[in-house]
């Protein structure tokens, strides 16, 4: 261990209803150190960080800052203690300016009043660290920025605090290569000035590029700690805990891939352009790209939530005019949203109700809610059983279930309608590893049963492991097509459209 860590977390445990998030996790970071925190989605990284930053209180364990124990009850206390976090979900206020966001809750005062001039000057100074090329004006409203700029603002916000500890939770998810380089240079500079940096990522090449040490979390426990950056394989093994081959199901055999189910030609709307696309029965097509590249927008367009304004969509060779999600569902398309809480679940309703929701939406309005032409309650129970949804009772409210079980219940929702095309957006975000594997197998089973599966994911290993074919998007366009033998580097290259270092 380091001599005098800036912060030290000792034997932290934390549970939420339905899931044990952390179990006796210890973690520390010293002055001038970049400590990479790796782990799959749902491994507990975010929870650990939220405990460090005072959002959650640990069930047990201690947080020490400069050697003294702290009990943060509010994020403000952590901020005062010198801990600043760049969260994965943006925490910016779209209706406020860049400068106002940067100084949220700690505006510079002069004579007790907000010193707008100082605020803007300081904002400009911090933003210049990213290079003038980006030219984000401090007075711009955040809503008017693109995703990468918003991410920059988010990073600038954390840096401007002059904190002792800066936590970066997947800061590069929306950045292209050049922007990443700016960030890395910034990290180097911060390290040189003695800041302790916790860097969360699952991109191995970033670990190799900037980390001093690596800690790997899996299922809420520390599975490995490296004092030097090891070979990527070692990290991956610690993250996954078993062989990849076991983790991901076998790919489709050539004869399993069947006819074209869905085709798009010339599809476009305000977010995506020139979309030509074919989804085939039995095939899982992975969509890779940076945040904001248009993958989700494409999924939403196919699903009618943000419909195409031009172009042609066919299903089973028949032209379809999909203007609303209901049109899409009638045409045989299903979708599992990425942000389950915001867009997928009706949390106060029972597991059963969540599963039955879509079937009921297309049944007779005043028909009994126990059975409809798609499925009845016992059929739903059987489906949930088959997917091994774990709940004390299917009458249990959805909010008490763990992420994986919630996701499976939503899959059941679609299975009841036997869709021809099923779109998964970030299917394993916030799901523990075991459940993850079963989701992959579920997708594969669906494909084998003849469904065309589309998967949007930001997790490159997942894209590579679970897809039969990979499409990469950038700036709203499909810019590359790969087989599952492609490397992460190739995908990144296509996704960023710039020269990339060869890494993991």
């Amino acid at each position, binding site marked *: 261990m380091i001599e005098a860590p800036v912060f030290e977390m000792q034997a932290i445990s934390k549970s939420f209803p339905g899931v044990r998030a952390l179990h006796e996790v210890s973690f520390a970071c010293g002055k001038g150190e970049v400590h990479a925190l790796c782990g799959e989605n749902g491994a507990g990284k975010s929870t650990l960080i939220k405990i460090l930053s005072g959002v959650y209180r640990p069930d047990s364990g201690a947080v020490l800052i400069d050697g003294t124990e702290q009990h943060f009850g509010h994020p403000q206390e952590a901020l005062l203690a010198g801990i600043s976090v760049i969260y994965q979900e943006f925490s910016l206020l779209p209706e406020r300016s860049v400068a106002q966001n940067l100084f949220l809750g700690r505006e510079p005062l002069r004579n007790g009043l907000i010193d707008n001039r100082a605020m803007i000057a300081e904002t400009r100074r911090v933003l210049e660290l990213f290079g003038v090329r980006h030219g984000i004006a401090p007075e711009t409203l955040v809503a008017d920025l693109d995703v990468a700029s918003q991410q920059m603002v988010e990073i600038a916000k954390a840096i401007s605090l002059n904190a002792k500890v800066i936590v970066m939770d997947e800061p590069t998810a929306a950045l292209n290569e050049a922007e990443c380089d700016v960030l890395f240079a910034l990290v180097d500079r911060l390290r040189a000035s003695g800041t302790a940096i916790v860097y969360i990522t699952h991109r191995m090449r970033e670990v190799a590029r900037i980390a001093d040490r690596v800690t790997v979390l899996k299922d809420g426990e520390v599975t490995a700690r490296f004092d030097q950056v090891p070979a990527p394989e070692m990290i991956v093994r610690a993250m996954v*805990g078993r062989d990849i081959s076991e983790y991901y199901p076998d790919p489709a055999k050539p004869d399993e891939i069947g006819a074209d189910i869905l085709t798009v030609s010339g599809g476009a709307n305000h977010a995506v352009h020139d979309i030509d696309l074919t989804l085939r029965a039995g095939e899982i097509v992975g969509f890779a790209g940076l945040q904001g590249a248009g993958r989700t927008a494409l999924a939403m367009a196919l699903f009618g939530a943000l419909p195409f304004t031009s172009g042609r969509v066919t299903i089973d060779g028949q032209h379809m005019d999909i203007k609303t999600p209901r049109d899409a569902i009638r045409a045989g398309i299903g979708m599992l949203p990425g942000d389950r809480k915001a867009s997928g679940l009706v949390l106060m309703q029972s597991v059963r109700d969540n599963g039955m*929701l879509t079937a*009921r939406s297309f049944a007779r309005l005043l028909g009994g*809610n126990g059975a409809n032409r798609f499925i009845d309650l016992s059929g739903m129970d059987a489906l949930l059983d088959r997917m091994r949804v774990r*709940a004390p009772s299917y009458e249990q409210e959805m909010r008490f279930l763990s992420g994986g079980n919630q996701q499976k219940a939503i899959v059941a929702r679609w299975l009841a309608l036997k869709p021809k095309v099923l779109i998964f957006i970030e299917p394993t975000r916030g799901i523990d590893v075991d459940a993850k594997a079963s989701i992959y197998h579920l997708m594969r089973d669906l494909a084998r049963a003849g469904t065309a599966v589309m998967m949007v994911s930001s997790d490159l290993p997942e894209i590579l492991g679970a897809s039969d074919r990979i499409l990469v998007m950038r700036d709203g366009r499909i810019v590359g097509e790969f087989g599952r033998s492609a490397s992460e580097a190739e995908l990144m290259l296509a996704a960023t459209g710039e020269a990339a270092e060869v890494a993991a």
Partner: protein
Amino acid sequence: MTEQSLSRPETRKRRLPQINPVYVLVVALILAIIVMNPAFGEPTGYMNFLKRVAALAILSAGALYVIVSGGFDLSVGSIMTLTVIGSSMLASNDPNSTYWIIPLMLGIGLVIGLVNGLVVSYLKVPSLIATLGMMITLNGVAFMWSGGAPRGYLPDTFRFFGRYNITDVPLIGILPIAVICLVVFGATLWWGMHRTNFGRMLHAAGDNPQAARLAGVPVQRVRISAFVVSALTAVLAGIILGGRAGVSVNIGSGFELQAITAAVIGGAQLLGGRGSVPAAIAGALALEAIFTLLNLLGLAQPVRLVVQGLILIGAVAFATYQRKRAGR
């Protein structure tokens, strides 16, 4: 290794079927009333009580539809006023007119509900403001229509629903028509909310409109329907209240907040997703029972306001506390 992570707390956490506290409240209040006034325990006593509460109870059950769908309906009181004033204007003391007036009023209610729903769904006006506007407008319409004072009586055929009792019923002696209406409409509304696809979609739309939309729920149509149901029950409540009390210019005012209060006491979640028709009806019974009890205790009107305020805040705070304790 993976097996260990399967020991999830939820499997241990088997919750007892919870009884909604509103039922306990109603029983306690009614017992208290009986202690204070034994006559209340006799059929005439409690039947009169039920007759009295019928309009509010039906209204609360209807208002619950909008609450579960995630909105508010402040226009129901004014719909009741409009129903009573309009009916009295049209009836011109003709007993046969009731047979076309009631369908006509339901038709007007349907239109009002549709307008509320369309304004909320398509013009995206928050329901609080949209139905507030509707409330002001309809009160104005009722005044305009009547010139400020009712111009006719409600015929006895119309008042039948709110006023008349079936007498000499075995066991209970009297059976008010209003109580029959309460049972019939209450059961219908219970069925619609808890036994149909529509009811489940309503819950989903109020719980998380975005998720519901992406799951294929026709959210806007479901919401509009909720406003229509609410407006229709307001017409029914108006017919019963008008039958009970006769014509007056402000007959429905104040009912919108009482209906919301009753639903909330019954555990309905404001902003949608949770609510029970029987509990909302029980909420209405509780509210009326409190008033009766305070009257019996000889407490003045101001005290009633204070008690109502405390119960309102208390009920919601208690529900929040319970939910928090159950874990989020």
